[in-house]
């Protein structure tokens, strides 16, 4: 890993976050109306607690966590909307909050739940305004429009008012609008929310293409684990304001998925299996058996080898845990860990 010292921006590290915390002060709703109005007590909520990470140029990072975990707060701090309560952020060498306008040229932001397009106007008009705001050169603008028309299918909806667009069409336009100025860094906060499979797939493919061809760094939040799985190389899992997991996508499976489920269909029923270390559950009067294999001591291959010594196998199915389930397990285990800590 490349180290960054003294705030000097090194090419490879696009984002550096050190000891980042963010608190919110909220009024406690207790006592009568008068008490609430005049003698309010405040409570501090720690939305983000002392998190650290860096993100290198060109990476695809998934921010995952349950609602209220601190994902959006972190993205708002990275994009300069919110100031940190304490800690340090540099995005391309700048403090995104103190150099808000400068930072804005380098980032694109899509909030899936909110539109940046002009509701009553065709997207062509919104794009013209963005061109002026970001001072985009004519040739860059023309080139990007060609790209969007080709890969995001904007040609057919170019002159239609936004209010007439489907959610999928609108989201494609939103993404195009957020990268019109060629930002090095793209934040996508729930870009596929409410979309159908076709639209989701199209957006995932475009994000990957953008990353391949322009080395755009993408930070994505989504509750759809398929998005994360297909797009991201790295996953940062936040829960209760703390980073719980930060690892390459491929490691997540290996380190958190300790078991797989092997199901075999047999040609003739068998009443009992006697394989050490593995427990089987019979179904269909012994014609079908399911085994949970602990990958730290055994493997599916070894199990099948053992079974084939006893019975004839008609069909096999090996189920790995889905990413969604792994993450669900991590949320749960994190809960219990916190309980034990207290």
């Amino acid at each position, binding site marked *: 890993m490349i180290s960054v010292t003294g705030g000097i921006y090194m090419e490879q590290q696009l984002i550096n976050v050190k000891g980042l915390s963010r608190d919110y002060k909220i009024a406690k709703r207790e006592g009568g109306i008068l008490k609430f109005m005049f003698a309010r007590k405040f409570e501090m909520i720690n939305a983000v607690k002392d998190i650290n990470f860096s993100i290198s140029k060109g990476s695809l990072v998934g921010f995952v966590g349950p609602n209220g975990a601190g994902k959006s707060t972190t993205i708002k701090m990275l994009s300069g*909307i919110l*100031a940190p309560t304490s800690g340090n952020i540099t995005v391309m060498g700048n403090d995104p909050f103190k150099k808000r306008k400068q930072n804005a040229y380098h980032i694109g932001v899509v*909030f899936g739940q909110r539109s940046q397009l002009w509701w009553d*106007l065709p997207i062509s008009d919104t794009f*013209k305004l963005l061109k002026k*705001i970001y001072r985009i050169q004519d040739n860059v603008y023309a080139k990007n429009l060609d790209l969007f028309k080709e890969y995001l299918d904007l040609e057919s909806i170019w002159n239609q*008012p936004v209010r007439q667009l489907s959610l999928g069409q609108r989201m494609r336009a939103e993404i195009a609008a957020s990268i019109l100025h060629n930002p090095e860094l793209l934040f996508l906060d729930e870009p596929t929310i409410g979309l159908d499979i076709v639209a989701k797939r199209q957006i995932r493919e475009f994000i990957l293409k953008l990353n391949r061809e322009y080395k755009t760094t993408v930070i994505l939040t989504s509750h759809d684990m398929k998005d994360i799985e297909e797009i991201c190389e790295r996953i940062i899992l936040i829960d209760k304001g703390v980073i719980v997991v930060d690892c390459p996508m491929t490691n997540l499976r290996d380190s958190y998925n300790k078991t797989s489920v092997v199901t075999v269909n047999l040609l003739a029923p068998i009443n009992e299996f006697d394989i050490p270390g593995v427990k089987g559950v019979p179904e269909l009067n012994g014609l079908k058996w399911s085994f949970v294999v602990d990958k730290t001591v055994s493997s599916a291959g070894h199990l099948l080898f053992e079974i084939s010594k006893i019975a004839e196998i008609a069909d096999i199915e090996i189920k790995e845990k889905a990413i969604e389930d792994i993450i669900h397990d991590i949320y749960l285990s994190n809960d219990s860990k916190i309980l034990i800590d207290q």
Partner: protein
Amino acid sequence: MEFLSIYGSYVKIFLKSRMEYRISFFTGLTVNFYRYFISYITFWALVQRFNSIEGWSFEEMTLLYGLNVVTYAIAGIFFWYTVYHLENEITSGNLDSYLIRPMGVIKQMMCRRFGDTFLGQILVTIIFMILAIYKINYRMTFFSYIYLVFTIIGGIFFQAGAMIILGSLSFWLLRTDSLSVTLYYDIRSMIQYPLTIFPTYIGFILTFILPYAIINYYPSLIILMKVQTCSDLIIGLLSPLIGVMIFALSIFIFNRGLRRYSGSGS
């Protein structure tokens, strides 16, 4: 000026979008035109009945009232829909979208909504003011005309400043609409009459606490040669400058509020 060019593009595109709802656009204009037209007619009827109000003729009343309306409406074109209603911008999350663009937040809000509905009242006010000035122009000198221009500019800054300050309250308070209506509309409505019809303490409030009277009353005294005391003259001459100062103050307050919103202030 780059901002003017951006603002121009926004207005052009906004008007295009308003044309999608042509009927609503023109009804908005006409309703505003009529509402203010009726105000002037009411004044006319009142002055006809009593000959004058505290020695102010219909033409003089028109100047007084018109200065308030025209400065309010011009400032409103830029600030009323978004900055004055900042509460909506915060709750809708629009404010976050402004913060990710490389442009000042107030500038973006000015661009975001062109206050087309104010055009009606500007039109009717200009008509009545021109008619009034035409009738009293024998009393006006070259200096009065120059001073009138400065008064209008200063008044626009004053009204804009008031809208920005009242909008900024949303950064500190959750709901501000009724408070703003009282502070801005109810209290300011008193300046459509000469200050002398009110008890002294109200005159004091409108001059020094919520100094709306510098928008129209003190300048009108100078233009209409009604100045009686030295302090009237000084306040009148300083009025345009005070307007600009209040505008500067409002920007300061807005930025403090924005810092509070983002959490870097207290």
